[in-house]
């Protein structure tokens, strides 16, 4: 036991004597959360558009001013007939061109209908789709309010919508659980795997193996400091999420921390497993980045909804631990459910931790090759 405490002290010293890494570890979650909360924004606002108005009548002017006052668009350029739309798009200055043909108002009065062209730069398809749908929504609204005021329409279906759990449609509700999974994965799995493979690479592993420490003590000693750091980070993320971004914790705080603890344990055992496979730090790092970071960001439902992915990726995503953890956190924090709704996910995480530990024990070599 005394030997173990000595070894643990060595591990803590390793970390504390490296202030640069320490700083990054504590800064990373904060910077990332602030970035996601304040900068990364999928909402459309102030998109630059161009107007090509060949009529210049009341209706086109009113529609233009309605578009500009919506907050979604700003006028980037006013085009003249004969201007090359292609040229405007190629320079990347505007995202959409709204084009009114000649005799716009007259056509509308005479025929009861008229077309307006929305030309969108679909090299960013998502933005293009949102911009055109906002613009056509504003135009429809204009027709309803200004032109159809006094006309009673028959058999109207009215859809009332209620946005559950996130009425303001704030994107930070998605990001807090995602970033938590990402940071915990990074600190726990990546740091542990690198720190163990470093001993291998520098040859100090040999010294440790020859010491009276048992293999299990070596591994526990390596893991404990990161367990502590991860836990502090989990707390930091939750505090920032709650107090700066107003993400609620509707469920039990203790239950939330217990689930985080489970996830950290799972990530640590994954880190040990990686270190038993990787011969040096560079390989450990690449495996971590490839096997942990990218899937955590992409296949966990953090940024992109899993249901939209092709079937093979949906199947692979089941093997991604963060996927289950994110479901658990969202359920506890945002929906306020208890164990009744997340027991399945919890069991899966436990099972994964168990498998990683079993595989690590099988792979851990006490002899050198």
């Amino acid at each position, binding site marked *: 036991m005394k030997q173990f405490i000595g070894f643990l002290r060595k591990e803590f010293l390793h970390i504390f004597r*490296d202030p*640069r*890494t320490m700083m*990054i*570890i504590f*800064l*990373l979650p904060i910077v*990332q959360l602030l*970035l996601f909360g304040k*900068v990364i*924004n999928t909402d*459309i*606002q102030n*998109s*630059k558009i161009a107007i090509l108005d060949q009529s210049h009548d009341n209706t086109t002017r009113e529609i233009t001013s309605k578009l500009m006052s919506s907050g979604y668009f700003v006028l980037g350029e006013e085009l003249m007939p004969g201007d090359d739309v292609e040229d405007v*798009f*190629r*320079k*990347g200055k505007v995202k959409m061109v709204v084009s009114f043909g000649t005799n716009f108002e007259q056509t509308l009065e005479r025929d*009861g*209908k*008229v*077309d*307006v062209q*929305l030309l*969108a730069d*679909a*090299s960013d*398809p*998502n933005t*293009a*789709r949102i911009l*055109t*749908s906002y613009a056509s929504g504003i*135009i429809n609204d*204009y027709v309803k309010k200004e*032109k159809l005021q006094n006309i009673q329409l028959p058999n109207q*279906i*009215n*859809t009332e*919508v*209620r946005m*559950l*759990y*996130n009425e303001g449609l704030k994107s930070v509700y*998605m990001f807090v659980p995602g970033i938590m999974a990402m940071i915990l994965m*990074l600190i726990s799995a990546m740091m542990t795997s*690198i720190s163990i493979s470093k001993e291998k690479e520098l040859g100090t592993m040999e010294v440790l193996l020859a010491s009276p420490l048992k293999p299990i003590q070596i591994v526990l000693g390596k893991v404990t400091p990161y367990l502590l750091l991860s836990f502090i980070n989990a707390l930091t993320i939750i505090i920032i999420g709650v107090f700066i971004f107003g993400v609620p914790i509707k469920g039990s705080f203790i239950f939330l921390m217990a689930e985080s603890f489970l996830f950290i344990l799972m990530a640590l055992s994954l880190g040990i497993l990686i270190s038993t496979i990787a*011969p040096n*730090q560079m390989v450990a790092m*690449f495996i971590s980045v490839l096997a942990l970071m*990218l899937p955590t960001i*992409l296949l966990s439902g953090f*940024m*992109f909804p899993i*249901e*939209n992915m092709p079937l093979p*990726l949906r199947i692979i995503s089941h093997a991604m631990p963060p996927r289950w953890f994110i479901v658990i956190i969202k359920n506890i924090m945002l*929906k306020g459910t208890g164990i009744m*709704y997340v027991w399945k996910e919890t069991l899966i995480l436990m099972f994964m931790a168990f498998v990683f530990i079993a595989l690590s024990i099988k792979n851990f070599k006490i002899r050198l090759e």
Partner: protein
Amino acid sequence: MKTLFYVIQKEFIQVRRNKTMLRMIIMIPLLQMLVLVFAATYDLKNVNIFLVDKDMSSTSRELASKIDASPFFTINNTSFNPDEGEKAILDNKDHMVLVIPQGFERNLIRDDKASLQLLVNAIDGQAAQLGYSYAASVIRDFNKNIIAEWKGLPEFNTPYQINSVSRFWYNSELEYKWYMAPGVLCILVTLIGLFLSGMSLVKEKEQGTIEQLNVTPIRKIHFLAGKLIPFVVIALFDLSFGLVVAKVVFNLPIVGSLWLVFGFGMLYLLGILGLGLFVSTLADTQQQVMFVTYFFMMIFILMGGVFTPVDSMPHWAQVVDEGNPIYHFIRVMRMVVLKGSNFGDLIHEFIAMSIIGITFLSLAVLRYRKTA
């Protein structure tokens, strides 16, 4: 010149002898292109709906089958109790609950108006909004059809109508993969360049071999160039490999000139590798390099507009982005590959990238000392 050649040769031998490294150079682009591009999509499909039809009239049944028939929605469960629906959302089984209240058909005919309720799981705000707007448009179409049917008209139109005709240039099918592929290529090239160069220098430090190099007549500039050039070559190889994969697998149209893509890519790599070397001159261990580069990469990528449009960011962030190499690279990639922009359209990006590159490289050169 001869010294430089030998230094470069040494680096290449080191890369070649490292089996895992070689595998990484091939596997990372493949995996990234195939997994990332397919995974990163906001396209909406497979939205599960929980239906609560309390009306049970022919109109409500017709509406339900209309929704079920649309490609985005599947009616997954039905019940008469709205609470069951909310439970299904809690359980993540369904995304939306559609409640058709009792007397829906009667109200629609007698009062000329009737209401529906739609409950949406809005934790993912963007998906919720998109799902709602699709559902609303299906309901609107249905509304138009039944008016026409009941009035005995072939088609029902309101007296004044302005049709918005949308045209999507450069990507008429709104293929999201074409947007993601160039972005993912940028991440790929950055990942390879930044990590490999930074790690390789600091590894010499960690293992002490840098002392041996320092006492040789190799000049500082040769040493740094030796650390730079091989990784530029590897990263450019990965860029072309990734482009081929994108072309073959996603049928990515490459409208603009490849010379422009590679020219800018080279300029970009010199800058980004300069950053990698600068970081590694500051660090002592590989772990530090990894964390610092990871930190910068994360910020550069997230702010650079790979996943979310830069236009939606606050103004100050857009100003800061002028100093973000990934922002410029992604812009250029997307503009050249998808829109065929020419050099004239990209002068601003070329100038900005040159300034960034020269800054990073000079920092690395100034900071590196041959003394221990």
